């Protein structure tokens, strides 16, 4: 099992590449890499079956969009056939360019779906939650409680259902579910009360205690939101682009400073530390190289990543070996998993003298 940070980096890198290019050759490379990773890493996951269904549905939608796109867009020079002009919306030339454009657009979305299928099946949700940064720890706690209580909710629902059946209640239509729903919600509230009391007994709520600091943080967050609004409004409404960008930069700075101030008051403890393995480094480095490389190409030579089947461009997509190489690096997690026995990614916390892991 690889470290979730390495997986997050791989997903960001793959998804960014899929979002920035419409070149079908590059998209095929990304999709092949993601498919390989999904097959090698994700197939053993319990979520694999549900993602298989979703991928099939995505493929079906993609196939439906191709004729839909071809029937609605009547632009292009390679005319396949012509529908009567008096047919509303559909009338006009059906062109090869429109078919290709529908094919590529749908394929880009399906590739994105495939990337997230690989990510979701490869990474455990509880490991993912441990990555929540300190400034979002409250949100992380809520999500953890939610995840933990889902099986308990299902068990409660089962027990209540059985109890109501014993009492003679029959669940024939959706209106008969009130005797199930109400005890389920009541149980949920009772659990929440017990949990809140137990959390308070264990000293939960150790965030900020200084009211002045709390006020300052709220003001900082509000200021950053206002500056973003201003930064967007200036270039859109009055074409003052440079001031707009400056405001956005300032807003970003204030926002991250506020997050830093929220996070520095938070102490975290870990029962098990996630282990960073050599394969995690390989995945992280290759993903970072792809992300940086594609980002650099996009900022310097955007045309290298775009694809436009209509005139003045051509139907045949261009291909550059450097981009192909960068994208093929995305298959590395699959290769690493093939050639390596998977050790546990987490190790029990050892007593350490440096105080790196503190109990909160």
């Amino acid at each position, binding site marked *: 099992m690889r470290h979730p940070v390495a997986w997050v980096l791989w997903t960001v890198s793959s998804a960014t590449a899929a*979002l*920035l290019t*419409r070149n079908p050759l590059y998209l095929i490379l990304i999709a092949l890499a993601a498919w390989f990773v999904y097959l090698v890493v994700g197939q053993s996951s319990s*979520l694999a079956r*549900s*993602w298989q269904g979703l991928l099939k549905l995505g493929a079906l939608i993609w196939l439906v969009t191709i004729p839909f*796109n071809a029937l*609605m*867009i*009547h632009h292009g020079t390679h005319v396949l056939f012509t529908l009567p002009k008096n047919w509303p*919306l559909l009338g006009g030339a059906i062109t090869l360019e429109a078919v290709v454009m529908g094919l590529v657009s749908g394929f880009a979305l399906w590739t*994105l779906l495939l990337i*997230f*299928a690989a990510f*979701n099946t490869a990474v455990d*949700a509880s490991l993912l939650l441990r990555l929540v940064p300190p*400034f*979002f*720890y*409250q*949100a992380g*706690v*809520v*999500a*953890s*409680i*939610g*995840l933990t*209580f*889902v099986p*308990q909710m299902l068990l409660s*629902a089962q027990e209540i259902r059985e109890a109501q059946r014993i009492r003679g209640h029959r669940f024939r239509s*959706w209106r008969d579910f*009130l005797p199930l729903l*109400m005890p*389920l919600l009541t149980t949920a509230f009772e*659990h*929440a*009360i017990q*949990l*809140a009391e137990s959390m308070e007994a264990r000293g*939960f709520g150790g*965030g900020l205690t200084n*009211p002045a600091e*709390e*006020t300052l*943080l*709220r003001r900082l*967050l509000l200021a*950053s*939101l206002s500056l*973003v*609004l201003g930064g*967007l409004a200036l270039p*859109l409404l009055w074409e003052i682009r440079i001031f707009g960008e400056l405001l956005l930069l300032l807003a970003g700075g204030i*926002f991250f400073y506020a*997050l830093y101030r929220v996070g520095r008051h*938070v102490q975290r403890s870990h029962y098990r530390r996630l282990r960073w393995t050599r394969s995690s480094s390989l995945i992280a480095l290759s993903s970072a190289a792809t992300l940086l490389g594609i980002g650099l190409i996009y900022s310097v030579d*955007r045309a290298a990543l*775009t694809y436009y089947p209509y005139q003045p461009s051509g139907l045949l997509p261009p291909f550059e070996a450097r981009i192909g190489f960068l994208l093929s690096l995305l298959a590395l997690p699959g290769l690493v998993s093939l050639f390596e026995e998977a050790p546990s990614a987490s190790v029990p916390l050892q007593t350490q003298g440096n105080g790196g892991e503190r109990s909160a």
Partner: protein
Amino acid sequence: MRKQRVHHALDTLILLGASLLGILAFLYPFFTLTRQGFTGNTAHAQDAPLFTVILILLCLGAILATLGSGEMNSKMVAILGVLSAANAVLRAVPGPAGFAAVFVLPILCGYTYGATFGFLLGAFSILVSALIGGGVGPWLPYQMLATGWVGMTSAWLPRLERWKKGEVIALGLWGLFWGFAFGALMNIWFWPYVFQPQQASLYWQPGIGLRETLRRYALFYVLTSFWWDLGRAAGNALLIWAFGRPILKLLRRFQRRFYFTVLPSSRENQPPLKVHPQKSLH
């Protein structure tokens, strides 16, 4: 008490500011593509979705970071977590025509417990449901924000406690409205990008004006997602009309158990603690 009021006011402003920015993020492609000229291969046509995702993440980040700055107590954390789990389970139960009962609790809780709670319950329900179902993807921030708005705006409905039948009817109609509005809102994140400017009257083109944009979108919506959304809207309304009254009663009963804070007394000759009831959980 004064500090609490200031914090509450600032939290409300952050929630509103982030929501305003979220709306702008949904509409952002219309502005940028109009200004840049959408010729299909323009680089900015590819920038816009990335920038929109960043904006949406910023909105969610601002709201969630506000929670971390000390406002959420253990009661709110616990109740949000447990109700998010319950709502995620409800979402996983498949209904007819793709209906999932994910909006009922955010609407009723938002109406009873306030805008902040409604927003957070909506957003966390989607997050938990995505984590258990492996539904993490670029669509997740959009869904979290839009479902959060369902809960948040439910708190803005007029208080109709005295008119019990009318209250449930109004909330059911609200569920009906959000069933359609959610679909209409979620379509916007891809609608401006779907096709090229050469295409005809079903899709958006730069420079066509607000009225024509609305007309085309209405046509697109009726032809595509209306029928899908109809199942969701009708399901919301039916569930609220059928079960809304007892659920509201339950929520109000537990409101009295949850909604109080224990404050230290300032005078020495008074009892050390006093209980301060709250109208809503912030």
